[in-house]
C-alpha cells in the first residue's frame, strides 16, 4: 500500500511539475585578454575594513571612480590614474598605516608578535626582525590576495629596516611597511593573467583559465565587492577553485554571508547609478519635501528592495518593477503619502494596492535622479529605461541642435505639450521618439517623486506605448517594463559585465544570450543568475596577455 501511495505521489509530482527545458552546454565564445582592474573606491574601503577592522576610518580623498558601460567596476579597467591620484593613494596608505599603529586592537590583529625596541643584543634584534618580517608577510599575503614572492618580502623588510634606522623604532618600520603594501599596485589593482588550462579540450579556442588563486579574488570582488577572507584565499591556494565542486562550495558560503548581500546591493547601486543620489540637489522652492538627506534615503530604499527581492524572497527580478513592497523611512513615507512603518528608520511596508506607486520606477531614487533640479524630465526617465534597463544605447543629441524645450505657457501648459512641440523638429524627433513616450508615463510624479494629478491646472495624461504595449499611467508602464522582452536579457548582460570586469565583446554574444535564456527559464531569479555566471566559462576562462 505504502509503495502504491509513493508511486502515486511520484506520478503526481511528474504530472504537475513544470520541468525546465533541457539546457545545453555553454556555447563557444571569443575569450578576452586579461585586463588590470583598479579597485573602485567602495572596493578599496571594503577591502581595508575587512583587512584591518571596521574601526578603520577609510580615507575618501581619492580620485573619483568613472563608469564605463554604466559600471564603476569597468571604469577601473579603462581609465588611467592621474599623478595626483597616485599621490592620493600614497597619502591614504600612510593615513591607514598610522591609524593601525595608533589603535591597539588593529595593531594587535596585525602583529601577532611583540617587538622590543630597547633590545641591544643580537638575538633579540633578530627576533624583532623576524617579527616584522612575519607581520609584513602575513599582511601582504592578505592584502595582495596571494603569497608574497621572497623578493617582494625582501623589499618590504628593507623598507621597514630603513624606516627603523631613520626614525628610530620598529613601529615606524612596520608603519612604513604597511603603507608600502597598501600603495602597491598588487593591492590597488586586481592582477589576473591566468594560466594554461591542462584540462582544455584539444582544438578549443579557449586554452587558458584563471588560476585558482585568481579565482578567489574574482569570486570575492564579484560576490562580496571586497577582498577574499582567509578561507576563500586558502581554498584558492589549495587549488580548489578551478573545480566546479570547489567553486560551488565557496559560492554557497559566500552568498549566505552578509557580505553576499552587500555585493548584490553594490551591483544594483552601480547598475542604477544610485550612488549619484548622495549628491541629489533639488530646487527647494519647487519641491517642499526635498532635504539634504532625501537622496540617501532614496538610495537605501532601492537597495533594500533589491536585497529583499534577491535574498529574502529569492524572487523574480522583473517584480522589482511592479512590487508594492518597499522599505521607507518617515521622510519617504511622507513623500509617498503612506503611514511610516517606523518612526526612526527604515522598515518594510506595503504601498496601497490601488495606488499608482509601485516598484523601483515609483521610487524617489529613479524619479528624482532622472529629472532636473526644477522639473521632471520625461526624456531622462525614458532614456534610463532604454539604456539601463533594456541595454539599448541612444545617440547623444547632434552638436548643433538646440536641445531646449519651450517654457510652460498657455500654448504649452504641460510637459507633454512642450515635448511635442520640441519633437516637431525632425532632428530631435528620432531619439525623443524612443524616450519621451515612455518618460511621459511618469508625469504623475514630480521631479522629486511626489504624486501630482495636475500640471499647471491641467489633468496629466500619462498614457503611452512601450514597444507595442499600451499603458495609461505609471503603474501600467511598470507592468509593460516587467513584461518587456529586453528586460531580462539586459540584466543578464549587465551582470555578466559586472562579474567578469570587462565590457562584453561581440564574440561573447552567444554566451551572454545563453545565460539570459537560463535566467528566464529559471524564473528570473537573481541568485540563480549569480551562481550561473560564476560557473560560466566567461568568468573562468581568459585569453593570453596582449
Amino acid at each position, binding site marked *: 500500500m505504502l509503495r502504491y501511495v509513493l508511486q502515486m505521489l511520484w506520478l503526481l509530482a511528474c504530472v504537475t511539475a513544470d520541468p525546465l527545458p533541457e539546457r545545453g552546454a555553454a556555447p563557444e565564445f571569443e575569450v578576452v585578454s586579461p585586463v588590470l582592474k583598479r579597485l573602485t573606491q567602495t572596493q578599496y574601503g571594503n577591502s581595508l575594513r575587512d583587512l584591518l577592522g571596521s574601526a578603520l576610518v577609510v580615507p575618501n580623498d581619492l580620485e573619483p571612480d568613472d563608469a564605463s558601460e554604466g559600471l564603476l567596476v569597468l571604469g577601473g579597467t579603462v581609465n588611467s590614474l592621474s599623478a595626483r591620484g597616485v599621490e592620493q593613494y600614497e597619502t591614504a596608505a600612510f593615513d591607514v598605516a598610522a591609524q593601525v599603529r595608533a589603535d591597539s586592537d588593529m595593531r594587535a590583529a596585525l602583529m601577532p608578535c611583540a617587538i622590543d625596541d630597547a633590545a641591544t643584543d643580537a638575538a633579540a634584534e633578530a627576533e624583532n626582525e623576524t617579527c616584522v618580517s612575519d607581520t609584513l608577510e602575513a599582511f601582504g599575503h592578505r592584502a595582495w590576495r596571494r603569497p608574497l614572492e621572497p623578493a617582494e618580502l625582501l623589499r618590504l623588510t628593507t623598507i621597514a629596516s630603513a624606516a627603523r634606522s631613520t626614525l628610530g623604532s620598529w613601529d615606524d618600520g612596520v608603519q612604513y611597511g604597511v603603507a608600502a603594501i597598501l600603495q602597491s599596485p598588487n593591492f590597488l589593482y586586481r592582477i589576473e593573467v591566468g594560466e594554461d588550462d591542462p584540462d582544455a579540450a584539444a582544438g578549443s579556442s579557449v586554452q587558458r583559465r584563471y588560476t585558482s588563486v585568481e579565482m578567489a579574488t574574482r569570486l570575492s570582488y564579484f560576490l562580496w565587492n571586497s577582498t577574499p577572507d582567509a578561507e576563500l584565499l586558502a581554498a584558492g591556494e589549495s587549488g580548489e577553485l578551478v573545480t566546479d565542486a570547489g567553486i560551488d562550495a565557496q559560492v554557497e558560503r559566500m552568498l549566505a554571508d552578509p557580505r553576499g548581500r552587500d555585493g548584490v546591493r553594490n551591483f544594483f547601486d552601480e547598475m542604477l547609478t544610485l550612488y549619484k543620489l548622495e549628491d541629489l540637489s533639488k530646487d527647494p522652492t519647487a519641491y517642499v519635501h526635498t532635504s539634504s538627506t532625501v537622496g540617501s534615503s532614496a538610495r537605501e530604499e532601492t537597495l533594500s528592495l533589491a536585497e529583499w527581492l534577491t535574498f529574502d524572497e529569492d524572487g523574480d527580478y522583473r517584480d522589482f518593477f511592479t512590487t508594492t513592497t518597499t522599505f521607507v523611512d518617515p521622510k519617504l513615507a511622507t513623500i509617498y*503619502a503612506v503611514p511610516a512603518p517606523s518612526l526612526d528608520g527604515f522598515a518594510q511596508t506595503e504601498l496601497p494596492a490601488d495606488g499608482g506607486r509601485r516598484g523601483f520606477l515609483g521610487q524617489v531614487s529613479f524619479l528624482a535622479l532622472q529629472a532636473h533640479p526644477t522639473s521632471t524630465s520625461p526624456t531622462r526617465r525614458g532614456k534610463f529605461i532604454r539604456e539601463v534597463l533594456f541595454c539599448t544605447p541612444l545617440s547623444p543629441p547632434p552638436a548643433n541642435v538646440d536641445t531646449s524645450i519651450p517654457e510652460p505657457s498657455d500654448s504649452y501648459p504641460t510637459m507633454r505639450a512642450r515635448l511635442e512641440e520640441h519633437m516637431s523638429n525632425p532632428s530631435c524627433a528620432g531619439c525623443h521618439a524612443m524616450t519621451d513616450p515612455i518618460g511621459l508615463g511618469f508625469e504623475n510624479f514630480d521631479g522629486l517623486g511626489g504624486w501630482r*494629478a495636475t500640471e499647471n491646472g491641467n489633468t496629466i495624461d500619462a498614457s503611452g506605448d512601450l514597444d507595442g504595449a499600451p499603458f495609461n499611467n505609471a503603474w501600467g508602464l511598470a507592468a509593460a517594463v516587467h513584461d518587456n522582452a529586453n528586460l531580462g536579457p539586459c540584466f543578464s548582460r549587465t551582470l555578466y559585465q559586472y562579474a567578469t570586469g570587462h565590457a562584453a565583446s561581440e564574440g561573447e554574444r552567444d554566451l551572454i544570450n545563453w545565460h539570459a535564456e537560463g535566467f528566464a527559464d529559471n524564473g528570473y531569479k537573481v541568485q540563480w543568475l549569480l551562481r550561473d555566471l560564476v560557473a560560466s566559462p566567461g568568468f573562468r576562462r581568459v585569453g593570453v596577455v596582449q
Partner: protein
Amino acid sequence: MLLWLLACAPAPDPEPTCSGDKTNVFVISQLSFSREVSDGVSAGFDLDGATTAAGDETGCGLADYTDPDGTAGIDNQFARVLPVLETTEAQALEPLIQAAVDDGSLLITLELGHVDADISASGSSGSGSSAGSSVGTSDTCVDFAMARATGTPSIGTDGRMEWYQTLAREPMSARSEAGQVALEDGRLQAQGLEVTIPVTILGHELLVTVLSGSLRFDVQPDGSVAGYLAGGLDQSQLLSIAETDNIDSEVTELVSSLLDYNVDLAPDDAGTCQQLSITLKFVAIPVFLYEG
C-alpha cells in the same frame, strides 16, 4: 514667555456605529486667534444660544459679534481682550503658539473615524484616479474626536509642516470625543469638546480649559481642512495665571480688570458670568498616526 500646549479631557469611548471603513487624521498646522475683522464682526460660534446686545440680561450684557457669514450671536469676547493683552508681555502670543505647533509641543489632531471616503482623497498618494479633495461632499455619519500627538514634525522647505507625515499618539493624553457628527457639503461641525490647554508662563505651567468647545471646519480644495475652535475660558483659572509671582503686578491688575468686564459665558446663580468666550482659527493638514 508663554508656551501653549494642549491636552484633552477624558471622555467615554462611544461604540462606533458609523459604517465607513476609513479613518482620516488631520493635525493642526496653523493656529491663531479669531480676531475682530471689522466693527462687531468676528468669526466664531453662538456658544450660549443667545444673541446678546450691549446691556442685555443675557451674556452678562456684553454684545455678541456677528460672523462674517452673517450669523448673529457670536461669542468671542477674547477678540476684544486680545488687543489690550498684546500691549503687555503677551504681545508675542500668536508666534509662540505657532512655534509650539512647529516644534511639536502643540500637536492637536482631528480624527475622523468610519468615514465613507477619504476626505483629502490622498491628493498626493498616487491613488490612481482618485486625486483631489472632497470639497462639497457629504458623509452622514462620522466619529469625530480630538487628541494630541507627539514627536518633532517634519517641516518642508516652505517652513510649514509636511503633509502626510506620520506622528505618534501622545500616550498621556485622552481623546475628547464628540461622538457621531455629519459632514455636510464639505463642512463638519462638532460640539461638546472639552479641551484643556496647559499654559506655561515664565516657567509656571497652568491648565486652561476651553469648556463646552465647539468646532467647525471646511474641507479645502487642496485636501486640508480649515475652521474654528471655540469655547469658554474659566475666569478663576485665568486669574490664577495672572497672579503668578513672576508676572508684573500691573499686568495682573490689567488682566483681572479685563476679565471682570469681559466674561460673558456660564452665569452662576447670581447671574455673574464665569467664563470668557474665545475662538481659535486653524488649518489642519492630513497626517497619519503611528500604530506600531
